[in-house]
């Protein structure tokens, strides 16, 4: 009898322990490499390492998209708008919000599972609101940059902190808003703060411990490669070069690509003569070591606050009979570029909005051929585009089947002023500003660009400027938003509008994502303080 009792007890214990045993890590490196092949997942900022934001899903089509209906809405209950791209893992969303709040949400119902709140210090120095652009994920961990320039890791199951490491001193103007990029066993991210005299950098941390592995300065110092593009002063120490948009990764070359921010101060440049490398550039770095493989500077010696913090979208396109590995880049300076991603050499570049500062981009040197009278001064100089740029940090998408690059374009100009502003810690150090004439009509559009020729294929106009990111799908749809709160589905071949829904707040500096759940394709759209999920009727 005793033997039987013990045996039953052992069996029960085994069953209980079995239930308590954690499963394998939810997200492996291979899962991230697979990108959107698993339709139940969206694991990186751009969905895939190449940043294409192009989903293979085909349940929602141009023929049925008009039937899309909201399924649920999640509200943060906080002031401030999402700029985040939610991570999707097997029916659960992981999303970050303002002031480094974060949530796990049931993707079926929109109900909260857990919530994370970060205690932020007093005295943070932020140029552009307490925003965040999302998690990275590996194993059972979520990674988030913080407004006080830290990297934190959270337990995906509970939202509790696993580590918290400082990147730099927030009291000196450093902050962080970028969604990190996980590559192998590293978490790669950078800092913001170019308007407050920081020296920008990209760095990699050990995903297990948080320990920093490498750092690449986006502002070259004396003796370093590119150091001679700064004066022989300490200007480089406050040279800007923020990183606030997630980069992309090429596993074959083991290179990460990041767009870098403007030099500081933004408009007054007499004290930073030279090209100011590696600001306003795309840099290709070895993912293991942070070593610079190549760089391409879009705006040498930028004086218009034209960060190149756009997504460097990777793809392969046929050029003169050869399949070329490229970076596609619609820049804030108003030019669209296709660049060879092996060599960093320019393939083609043309304006995609009205530009008045450069005649063209030289194919010989890769540099802009400047037009006169565009350097800001005390009297003011009118230049197109405005400081917001031809586009900005809203992510574009790329349809590899149609070979079309979709980007939100802004048609705006501004009068730029510059003056010699004394640097002071904690004070916005732009050395100037801009004014837009009241008579000027600013407007926007979603544009489809052929990356082979850099020519526009179609556009869909908005009455005002938009800051919406873009999502495309293999069924021939593009999802974007206007500046007034509509999420819009367009035919990706023609740009014809097929469906729209007024969300009440614009899709601003983020975009939609899509995933499968229970056999249904969901479209998830962040706008304002809400997430709204759409699907076709059952």
């Amino acid at each position, binding site marked *: 009898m005793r033997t039987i009792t013990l045996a039953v007890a052992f069996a029960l214990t085994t069953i209980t322990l079995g239930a308590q045993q954690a499963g394998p890590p939810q997200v492996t490196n291979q899962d991230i490499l697979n990108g959107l092949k698993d339709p139940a997942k969206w694991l990186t900022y751009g969905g895939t390492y190449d940043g294409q934001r192009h989903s293979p899903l085909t349940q929602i089509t141009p023929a049925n998209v008009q039937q899309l209906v909201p399924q649920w809405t999640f509200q943060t209950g906080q002031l401030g708008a999402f700029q985040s791209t939610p991570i999707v893992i097997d029916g659960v969303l992981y999303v970050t919000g303002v002031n480094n709040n974060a949530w796990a949400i049931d993707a079926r119902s929109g109900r909260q599972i857990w919530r994370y709140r970060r205690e932020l210090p*007093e*005295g*943070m*120095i*932020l*140029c*552009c*609101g*307490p925003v965040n652009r999302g998690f990275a994920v590996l194993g059972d961990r979520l990674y988030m940059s913080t407004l006080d320039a830290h990297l934190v890791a959270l337990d995906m199951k509970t939202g509790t902190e696993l580590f918290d490491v400082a990147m730099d001193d927030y009291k000196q103007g450093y902050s962080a808003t970028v969604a990190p990029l996980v590559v192998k066993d590293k978490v790669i991210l950078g800092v913001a703060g170019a308007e407050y005299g920081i020296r920008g950098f990209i760095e990699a941390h050990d995903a297990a411990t948080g320990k920093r592995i490498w750092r690449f300065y986006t502002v070259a110092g004396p003796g370093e490669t590119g150091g001679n593009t700064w004066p022989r002063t300490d200007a480089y120490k406050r040279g800007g070069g923020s990183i606030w948009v997630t980069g992309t990764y090429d596993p074959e070359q083991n290179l990460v690509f990041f767009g870098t921010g403007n030099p500081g101060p933004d408009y007054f440049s007499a004290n930073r003569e030279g090209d100011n490398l590696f600001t306003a550039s795309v840099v290709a770095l070895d993912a293991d070591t942070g070593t610079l493989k190549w760089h391409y500077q879009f705006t040498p010696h930028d004086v218009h606050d034209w960060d190149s913090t756009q997504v460097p979208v990777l793809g392969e396109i046929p050029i003169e009979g050869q399949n070329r590995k490229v970076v596609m880049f619609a820049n804030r300076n108003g030019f669209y570029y296709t660049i060879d991603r092996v060599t960093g050499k320019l393939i083609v570049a043309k304006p995609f909005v009205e530009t008045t500062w450069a005649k063209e981009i030289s194919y010989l040197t890769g540099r802009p051929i400047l037009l006169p009278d565009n350097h800001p001064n*005390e009297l*003011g100089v009118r230049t197109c585009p405005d400081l917001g740029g031809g586009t900005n940090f809203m992510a574009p998408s790329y349809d590899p089947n149609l070979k079309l690059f979709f980007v939100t374009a802004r048609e705006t100009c501004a*009068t730029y*002023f510059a*003056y010699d502003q004394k640097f*002071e*810690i*904690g*004070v*916005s150090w*732009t050395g*100037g*500003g*801009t*004014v*837009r004439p*009241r*008579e000027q009509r600013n407007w926007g559009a979603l544009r489809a660009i052929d990356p082979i020729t850099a020519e526009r294929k179609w556009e869909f*106009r*908005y*009455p005002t400027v938009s800051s919406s990111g873009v999502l495309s799908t293999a069924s021939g749809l593009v999802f974007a938003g*206007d*500046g*007034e*709160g*509509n999420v*819009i589905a367009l035919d990706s071949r023609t740009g014809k*509008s097929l469906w*729209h829904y*007024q969300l009440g707040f614009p899709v601003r500096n983020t975009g939609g994502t899509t995933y499968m759940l229970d056999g249904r394709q969901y479209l998830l759209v962040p706008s304002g303080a809400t997430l709204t999920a759409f699907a076709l009727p059952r």
Partner: protein
Amino acid sequence: MTRMRLIALCTLVVSLSAVGFAQDPPGPKRSDTLPPGKNPHLGRADSIKSGQVLFQTRCADCHGLDARGYRGPDLTAVLGGMPDERLFQTIRKGVPGSDMQPNNMTDDDVLLIMAYLRNMNKATVTETASGNAENGRKVFASQCATCHRAGDSGGRLGPDLSRIGSARSRDALTREIRTPSEWMAPGYESVTIVTNDGQKIRGVKKNEDTFSIQIMDARERLQGYMKSDVQQVVFEKASLMPEYGKERLNDSDLNDLIGYLRTLRGSSTR
């Protein structure tokens, strides 16, 4: 008759620079009140120039490059009677209830801007009230009140002018009465909706997105339309307000009208 909204704004640069300052940053002083003593920059050419640059980069996006108003008030009109203490605090603390936010400029930068504004304002501070306000009230009642409110009465198709006289210079008011199509303020841009049966509905645009438009028609009815449900939406270049040239409003009546507007200090119900 003019289309200036009475919203005090300052530049995005200023408002954004205020973000995140829960405590005073180190460095030069940032006082809540006017520093004691005379403004050391007053009347100094170099200071005035520096103040102008600061104004242009920090304030002009809302108040206009010439400070004569854009989205924010015409400062040449409002500063004449404003003491330094109030001007300093307005720049420092912003205007509650408006889009003009507090900022963390140094005291010296604020004083530089004040020196520039005071210098620029010299010409207009001497602008004394003139015109027969009583006749101006009659002109307003007969020519303007159908579309504009003044105090507690009048129309709503055009902007409420109850405070416009204290926010705009005489020159600005004159320009906007004589040539109202030069610029139409947001919310008062002229639009014509052509319905599918050919009917034309004129009004002012209140709002718009890619697919819809909201208007107040000439009978003050608020209406919304889906653009796909109408034949055409025409954004008119001419304001709904007619041009009040000299043949329509002689100089004397115009002077009286402005004199009347300058007596107004808002609605009694607000």
